């Protein structure tokens, strides 16, 4: 399938609107990187090698065997690259939380573009008497038009703009999961393994973070929620939720090894919805309601008031991919 003489399958990795943590996680797979190098021709990976946009355009359709795409679709350039790489890739993986479900920056969908621009360009430390905003096209005093990509009204996930073959959750995906996926693809290409059906979640478990957590669960009900910084001494071995600390493990897919609860911090849900969950937030709300020790509606409401930010707590990582994703429409973008 290769046309550059090496005969090896081709690998690409790209970052759209992201923090770079997914790239770091891949680099952290250590010596496994050498396996990637041995098994694939790395044809496009901006963080690690030189390749140009027109090089990708010149590739035959479907000629890249495997593309790991991280980052969300925040602007017009991100979408352009998503479409190009879909066209050129046989297997396109939505890699990491931003690409699969929008991640933390997906919470921008609670706000309009104007609200975001005001929060950024009219801060207490910003001297901006004329209310200047970035423009997609701007004429310099020298008479040249400068351009920047349009900031979209909404963050989109990769599968909201192109067809995606596999979904790999995590913020970022854990390195051992990345290494396992790389192994699987190498084996499959050698005819020694079979890839899962299209649309599958890969590089993660099939249960929940709770199932991986070392903390003891006694299926105890709670009569109030507390916030972690308000707790004088967190019990080091007991389930955090049973201590009244909102922990997202119940609704979150396994695969990370329950790292955060392991060090006394609540699961915040970065591995996305557990298997067969349509809407993460709805599932978490149901799960949380089930541990509340009351049947009195007023009392239940009082207990739920102990969760100070339900929208953020239930849709922290996956608002952009949730049933709520329509969010608030932009008042206007930053067109010229």
């Amino acid at each position, binding site marked *: 399938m290769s046309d550059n003489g090496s005969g090896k399958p081709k690998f690409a990795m790209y970052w759209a609107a992201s923090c770079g943590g997914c790239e770091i996680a891949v680099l952290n797979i250590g010596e496994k990187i050498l396996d990637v190098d041995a098994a694939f021709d790395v044809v496009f990976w901006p963080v690690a090698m030189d390749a140009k946009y027109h090089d990708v355009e010149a590739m035959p359709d479907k000629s890249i065997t495997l593309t790991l795409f991280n980052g969300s679709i925040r602007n017009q350039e991100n979408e352009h690259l998503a479409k190009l790489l879909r066209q050129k890739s046989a297997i396109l993986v939505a890699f990491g939380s931003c690409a699969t479900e929008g991640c933390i920056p997906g919470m921008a969908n609670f*706000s309009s573009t104007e609200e975001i621009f005001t929060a950024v360009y009219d801060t207490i430390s*910003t001297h901006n008497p004329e209310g200047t905003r970035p423009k997609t096209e701007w004429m310099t005093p020298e008479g040249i038009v400068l351009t920047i990509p349009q900031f979209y009204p909404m963050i989109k996930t990769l599968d909201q703009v192109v067809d995606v073959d596999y979904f790999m959750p995590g913020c970022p995906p854990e390195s051992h999961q990345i290494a396992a996926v790389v192994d699987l693809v190498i084996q499959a290409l050698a005819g020694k393994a079979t890839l899962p059906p299209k649309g599958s979640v890969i590089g993660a478990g099939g249960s929940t973070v709770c199932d991986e957590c070392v903390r003891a669960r006694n299926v105890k009900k709670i009569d109030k929620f507390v916030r972690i910084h308000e707790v004088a001494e967190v019990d080091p071995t007991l389930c955090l939720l049973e201590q009244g600390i909102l922990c997202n493990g119940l609704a979150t897919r396994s695969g990370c090894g329950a790292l955060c609860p392991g060090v006394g911090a609540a699961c915040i849900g970065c591995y996305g919805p557990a298997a067969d969950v349509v809407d993460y937030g709805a599932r978490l709300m149901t799960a949380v309601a089930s541990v509340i020790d009351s049947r009195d509606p007023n009392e239940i409401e009082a207990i739920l008031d102990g969760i100070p930010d339900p929208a953020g707590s239930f849709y922290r990582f996956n608002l952009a991919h949730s049933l709520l994703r329509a969010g608030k429409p932009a008042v206007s973008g930053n067109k010229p």
Partner: protein
Amino acid sequence: MQRITIDPITRLEGHGKIEILLDEVGEVANTYFQIPELRGFERFCVGRPVEEMPVLTNRICGVCPEAHHMAAAKAGDAVYGVEPTSTAKKLRELLYMGFYFTDHTTHFYALGGPDFVMGPDAPVAERNILGVIHKVGLEIGGKVIQARKYGHTVVEMLGGRKVHPCTAIPGGVTKGLTEEERQKIEGMGRWGIEFAQFSLQLFNDLVLGNQGYVDLILGDVYTHRTHYIGLVDEQNRVNFYDGKVSVVDPDGQRLGKYAPAEYTDWIAEHVEPWTYLKFPYLKQVGWKGFVDGNDSGVYMATPLSRLNAADGMATPLAQAEYEKFFTTLGGKPVHQRLATHWARLIELLYAAERLVELATDEEITSPHLHTVPTKTPTEGVGIVEAPRGTLTHHYWTDERGILTKVNLIVGTTNNYAPISMSIKKAAQSLIHEGTVISEGLLNMVEMAFRAYDPCFGCATHSLPGQMPLQVTIRDADGQVVDVLSQYCGNS
């Protein structure tokens, strides 16, 4: 008007683009360094509980999440007016030293150092970490990998995760240190001191021993007379985790020191319509555009800035190197941007020494990890030194500690104006009467970038220093005359 576009191809069409505009004679009329991306954390963090900010804002940057984690935790302390336990503060700082150790090692060996170790004229293919290993010896490769791994281990041990740590909360941390873990960290730290000394010796032998390199460092192309800022302790010594921000002018005179809560008296930001990133400047001096000098509010915040803004280092071995640095380069402040690479190694040594100090502190394994806040939350500012510049988080909350407003001034952003100026100067020195010295332009612009170790994780997300460039040269009609490209990083 002729136009030259430089696209960093890490981000392809955009994500950090340089436009060079020539006048009728073909001299550089102006340059524009555009950052084409925004995510808007200042907005969507509003409504969130303040104790979550350490795990929300570390998603600003996957390269330096530790810096955001710490700045957010400190801002959370301030919002609640709570003093973390002494052990908690030391554990946070210990994690942070592990992070600095890895980060500075990566930059020197994989990104910035190859220009010096291999020489700026070495073929592109050799100017990378592999070239360094070939030249200096194979064992150095193993040491570099070890150094990075040790730093990561400290972060994971204390932060719970390799990327995006999760243990700092207002009032303290959720994870303590066992004696067994402490011993491991101490051992890694002691090895780290030797590694940092070895790195400085390498710099001394290969760079300072070569007059050509010294001339390059001291040359005018990479020199800008700007203000400098950096966090210092009570004795005005460099500190990464805590203290006040010292501000010095281009003559090295200290204009003052500000506590985190006073930052708006000192720092302001300027907005341009052609980029998504703002330009911070010194408020009292004012925004005068992209110019050097005492009357321009442009400042820099980098390892070199921190050394310039401080009176010394807080650990003995690093202090000796600090003195040698300024003696060799002709006194304070040092304006030559390429000296930043040396300053970074001095900070590497400090990070290792401080790591051992903290790992051997008798309080470090204490179980007192957290002070429960008792005051009503209102407003607070947290500042740390990110490797790439002073990092400021400012939060306002309601009485329940729910954010109502957020302001962030992020590491590399501090240096947006000086980086833009360095680009312009490199272009001006290499383009005359419309003639572009092609290879020279690419390499010199890259070297100008790399000194700042730019990490636009907050904007373009290029990994630090990774700025492969493509230059498209167009004639006055916009027709492409030539396309040049170059790639120097390899990590």
